[in-house]
């Protein structure tokens, strides 16, 4: 199986030490994390991790099971890039003097979808939100104009097929969860149901 980028989305309780638990699942297996983000979710008290790794489907599936095994983890999903909408945000600091004198800023903003966040006499900060290629392309441009600083955020992603987590959480909250026995309604979609 070939490697590709997978985005893992994890819904969790807010628990001290959970970050370590999740991180050790990756570090123990010597997996390089490309991007790691934690944020609130649509539900108060439920957190959402977004992790990007480069691996095979077989491996990412096993990882998700290991993650779901953690007591405070509600669910872990993995998706290919086609299955998600994602964004990363990047900030660029450049000397205002050079920008103002030599660059057609307006063209820059239009062409790269950049925004100006701050203009000071000494420096200007641009922002680009988009995919990695887009934020990287803009570095190349600004490098010609004495780019001083660059920083990019982790990936955040929305799963196209997701219905959100409210319904799932209700299931989890019911105390009969786990005692259920299902009849033959999954047989045709074996792969799909193969997470908890």
């Amino acid at each position: 199986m070939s490697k590709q980028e997978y985005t893992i989305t994890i819904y969790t309780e807010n628990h001290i030490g959970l970050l370590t638990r999740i991180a050790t699942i990756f570090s123990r297996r010597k997996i390089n994390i490309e991007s790691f983000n934690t944020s609130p979710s649509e539900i108060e008290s439920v957190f959402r991790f977004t992790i990007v790794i480069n691996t095979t489907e077989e491996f990412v599936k096993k990882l998700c099971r290991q993650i779901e095994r953690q007591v405070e983890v509600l669910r872990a999903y993995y998706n290919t890039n086609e299955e998600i909408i994602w964004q990363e945000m990047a900030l660029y600091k450049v000397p205002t003097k050079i920008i103002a004198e030599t660059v057609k800023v307006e063209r820059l903003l239009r062409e790269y979808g950049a925004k100006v966040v701050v203009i000071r006499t000494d420096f200007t900060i641009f922002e680009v939100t988009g995919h990695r290629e887009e934020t990287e392309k803009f570095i190349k441009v600004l490098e010609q104009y004495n780019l001083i600083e660059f920083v990019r955020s982790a990936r955040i992603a929305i799963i196209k097929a997701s219905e959100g987590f409210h319904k799932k959480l209700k299931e989890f909250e019911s105390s009969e969860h786990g005692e259920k026995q299902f009849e033959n309604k999954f047989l045709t979609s074996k792969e799909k149901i193969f997470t908890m």
Partner: protein
Amino acid sequence: MLQRDVQQMKNNFENISGSQAVLKALVAEGVKTIFGYPGGAIMPIYDALYDYQKIINHVLVRHEQGAIHAAQGFARVSGKTGVVFATSGPGATNLITGLADALIDSTPIVCITGQVFAHLLGTDAFQEADVLNITTPVTKWNYQITDANEIPFILSKAFFIAKSGRPGPVVIDITKNAQLQFFDFEGYKICEHIRSYLPKPNIRKEFIEEAAKLINASKQPFVVFGQGVILGNAEKEFLHFIEKSGIPAAWTILGMGAIPTNHKLAMGMLGMHGNYAPNVLTNKCDVLIAIGMRFDDRVTGRLDKYAKQAKIIHLDIDPAEIDKNVKSDVPVWGDCKITLPLLTELIKKKSYPDWYKQFDDCRKLEEAKCIQPDINPTGKILTMGEVVNTINELTKGEAIIVTDVGQHQMVACRYAKLNNTRSNITSGGLGTMGFALPAAIGAKFGAPKKEVIALIGDGGIQMTIQELGTIMQSKPNIKIIILNNNFLGMVRQWQELFHQKRYSFVNIESPNYVQVAKGYGIAGAKISKRSELKPAIKKILASKKSYLLEVMVRKENNVFPMVPQGKGVSEIVLSKKEI
């Protein structure tokens, strides 16, 4: 609200200290035995324990590692949760080996560790260690309590998590201020549900039906089972399943004892030093049914040569285990106590005479080449095999056998006869030398009416020999048999077989064990002749007190059969010549 109700509510609120709440929680959880060692940061809890001595038996160990191994032994024989007290810093770090052992062997343990005052956390205070982070990779769950109000809820959660689903160790680190703090105790509620935690996965009947279809169509089905059968208390359901289906079954080291070892469908132990037949025929069966086991590398050998011809059905309570090492064709998630009867109902009553014969032929080969020379040796010097055989003869399979790690462990697990479940206590996954002595102590507290025999090598005994002090003080009646070959035998065997006999630091020397035991007030004897063996074991079994017997055995004996590392299970060899 009525005046009466208000009064009742007030009565329900008790103002007590965090430490008292800890003890109340333990009582509510039915804890009657604790293994522990006091120290500065856990003193308030020990102070509270002082008033509970009539209800809770505290066993004072000699090292915290001893405490957790004892708790493991206790949990494994009794099915209850083992409880450990340890202090902060070194007290807690001494638990690590036991935690890792309990995690990989799925043993329910709750460790309560003291911690420095909350305001000192992160200041490198005296006896402060970052217990939460150190224990994270080796616990099923851990939590640090800094406020007494959290104690009842967190402890109930701890016991629920440790025991439910696939069991495991839990560490609760309680800062000293929380132990001392007084708070309104509203009573203790046993935890039964945590929304983010699903101890038992949902059962999907279509997979059970699919599994039954495969089994019913099979000509040479084979069951491999592990500790999951024991942990799920599903021994009866399992027996019913194999007896109806007529499928031969072999166990992993931790599954041993789930069915009587002399059952007609019991085909012995799997794995590197397991029996010949189950290893070879793993690669001949057409359907492999794995129940409550995790395809450890010591069981599978080389994965790309493991049961490639077979359809694999895997029953496990832990979804993360399914497809982890061996890809299954039919995954049956769920507690095998529930899934096995569902499966049994759907399968046909069958028998496989030709298939059994293949097992029997393999067994005869092993019997001639390995077993007989081991248990009825012709040489002058005693072998480990005949010691185990003599124990079988005298205990008739009724004893609990606790083993350490190494050659003697493999020999014991190959030859021990066990009639009862929860009778084989050993460190399987982690392979912790030094496990047996403290685990045997714990086992005796967990099953006081049973004979507990600890078989230990001359290496392992010296790792936790200080626990003789625990025996001296707490007086559990356990029988310690040291199988002394003057070597770290398993390492020596590998050096002989794979390192051109370059014996690098395996010639371990022993103290005078009988004298050491005597120093602890424990009777002891040392034997080396065949004529002494049976009388000596008879004598130790008859003893009402603990007894240490040192048996001098053959120095350079190898354990065979063996699946050499990197080889497939069917490449198992019966002697050195075949390697």
